[in-house]
């Protein structure tokens, strides 16, 4: 070739032509594919929201169908701020406008988290009150709520975002206002360890949240992620083995975000009022009044005249349980179950009679679900005592299950040394505190009485 390829002029001309060609080509490709890419992103978001509802119709919806179904199910989109005040309220009639930053669908919780929430948390590390105040004052932080109507029921889908082990995690939860129960959940992550932390996207993990509640005695009660293999109460789910830090992240994320929504629902009782879902709660008012069951004339009671002696009280319970409302009724100390010191081995000789009595009783009271509570004295490490009480409660449960009681009817809970009934300073007191309790937590015969 005649052209001198080493000359500066040639080099510059070449570079210019190259930049123009490459730039033009890239811009062309990017513009051409942009609509497809945006549709992917927005459909994925709709897919996540729909999957969180936890109803059959939207379970496992594909990304392609999500766009169509979204408008069919989601009737209202609300945006609230940290204090639970509404800042935007749209219905499914209003099309989603990508430039309307306040539309609930356009709220990017992840972006807001890293841009506004994280700096505040880092600045006031550990000072909860200050963090709360700063978050409350910020006008940049928003939370979306999607209201789904289906078969006469209303479902409230809320969003959460936080940090896992490596990077962002986020998710949607569907909450029923009655009893503040979780109805469905879906989580996703950016870069959790594949095969470990990334399992938060799997069904078994997400399904665990269904039926858990975020309320206890009219107060907010965060959902806790426990080490796998422990007994769980209705605020706890199993974590993923080998992914403790991701679990901590999920717990922190849910705790912080759900609190905002809880506040909102409490401040806006009008949402709780209309179109509530079918009654699944078994709450009672907990007083000693006699009430009439709506559909029959049986008197129900929330308490019986117990004497404090287990054998007698259990007998009384057996005779009257049909009318007893579960709730915060008395828990019985089971006298007569003995364990080997420091272990969860039941002392068979001295305990069999009592245990068999309970087995017989539960076989009669087939409509009743019970909680077994393990308690210890305060001699030792709190964590060890907690474990011991849990494993003792589980040992009793195992015995009952072995002898024919359905496992689903029994919840074993460890309380450690947190609920003493006597003075831990004396030997008698400590002996009294080491105990197993039984409590009726659900009675299907009276469950529908309010």
């Amino acid at each position, binding site marked *: 070739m005649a052209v001198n390829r080493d000359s500066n002029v040639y080099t510059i001309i070449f570079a210019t032509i190259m930049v123009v060609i490459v730039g033009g080509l*890239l811009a062309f490709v990017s513009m051409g594919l942009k609509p497809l890419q945006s549709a992917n992103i927005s459909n994925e978001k709709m897919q996540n929201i729909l999957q969180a509802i936890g109803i059959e119709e939207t379970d496992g919806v594909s990304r392609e169908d999500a766009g169509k179904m979204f408008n069919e199910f989601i009737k209202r989109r609300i945006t609230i701020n940290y204090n639970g005040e509404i800042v935007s309220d749209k219905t499914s009639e209003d099309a989603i406008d990508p*430039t309307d930053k306040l539309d609930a669908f356009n709220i990017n919780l992840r*972006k807001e988290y890293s841009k506004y929430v994280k700096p505040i948390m880092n600045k006031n590390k550990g000072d909860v009150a200050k963090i709360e105040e700063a978050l409350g004052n910020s006008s940049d932080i928003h939370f979306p709520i999607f209201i789904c109507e289906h078969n006469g029921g209303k479902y409230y889908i809320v969003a959460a975002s936080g940090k896992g082990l490596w990077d962002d995690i986020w998710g949607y939860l569907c909450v029923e206002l009655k009893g503040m129960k979780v109805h469905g959940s879906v989580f996703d992550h950016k870069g959790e360890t594949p095969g470990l932390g990334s399992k938060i996207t799997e069904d078994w993990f997400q399904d665990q949240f269904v039926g858990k509640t975020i309320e206890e005695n009219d107060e907010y009660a965060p959902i806790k992620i426990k080490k796998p293999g422990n007994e769980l109460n209705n605020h706890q789910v199993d974590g993923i083995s080998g992914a403790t*830090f991701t679990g901590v992240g999920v717990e922190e994320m849910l705790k912080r975000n759900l609190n905002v929504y809880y506040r909102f629902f409490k401040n806006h009782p009008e949402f709780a009022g209309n179109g509530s879902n079918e009654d699944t709660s078994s709450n009672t008012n907990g007083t000693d009044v006699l009430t009439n069951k709506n559909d029959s004339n049986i008197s129900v009671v929330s308490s019986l005249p117990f004497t404090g002696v287990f054998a007698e009280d259990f007998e009384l319970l057996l005779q009257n349980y049909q009318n007893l409302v579960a709730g915060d009724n008395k828990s019985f100390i089971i006298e007569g179950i003995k364990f080997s010191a420091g272990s969860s081995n039941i002392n068979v000789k001295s305990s069999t009679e009592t245990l068999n009595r309970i087995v017989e009783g539960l076989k009669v009271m087939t409509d009743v679900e019970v909680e077994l509570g393990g308690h210890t004295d305060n001699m030792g490490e709190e964590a060890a005592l907690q474990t011991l009480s849990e494993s003792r409660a589980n040992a009793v449960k195992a015995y009952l299950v072995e002898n024919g009681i359905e496992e689903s009817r029994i919840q074993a809970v460890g309380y450690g040394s947190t609920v003493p009934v006597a003075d831990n300073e004396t030997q008698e007191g400590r002996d009294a505190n080491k105990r197993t309790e039984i409590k009726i937590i659900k009675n299907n015969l009276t469950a529908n009485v309010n």
Partner: protein
Amino acid sequence: MEYINIFIKSAFIDNMIFTFFFGMCSYLAVSKTVKTAVGLGSAVIFVLVVTIPINYLLETYVLAEGALSWLGEEYATMDLSFLSFIMFIAVIASIVQLVEMLVEKFSPALYGALGIFLPLIAVNCAILGAALFMQQKQFANIGEATVYGLGSGFGWFLAIVLIAAIREKIKYSHVPAPVRGVGMAFILTGLMGLAFLGFLGFEL
């Protein structure tokens, strides 16, 4: 405090080599002696500390969606993020070239130490990888981004110097013939990576 956390995280927990394998090519090629390892390691730190803040500014004020809004209202919806790969690599390549020229001119001694490694770095995945992660992590300000660059570079430096020291010693061991050299370097890096897993979740 935040700066220290970012540094620790990028240097030890998200170590370029042990968790992301960034810059493995030069890591394996230049880790035969400690002296060259120190040279290349320092060059990586240097280039990262210079390029990450520049790429951060580029990302925040030019490339990201809505980043051009300082030009005027009509630019607020522009999204040039599809150009980020090419812009980042261009910045890295030209900065490396520029640095090489400056160092050669003003500090021949430093050039003697770093010079031959600088051209190698333009195609070192660690540099572009750090830039892409910087983009993903959306740091709040340029200070955090710079510290991230410093931490990542330090982590890379640490990794290559450590492996070089081990490889110097292992020459005198009876390694089965087929794994001699690169094979052994892989397995050693894996073992070191296991040790670095111990930093997981570490935070101040």
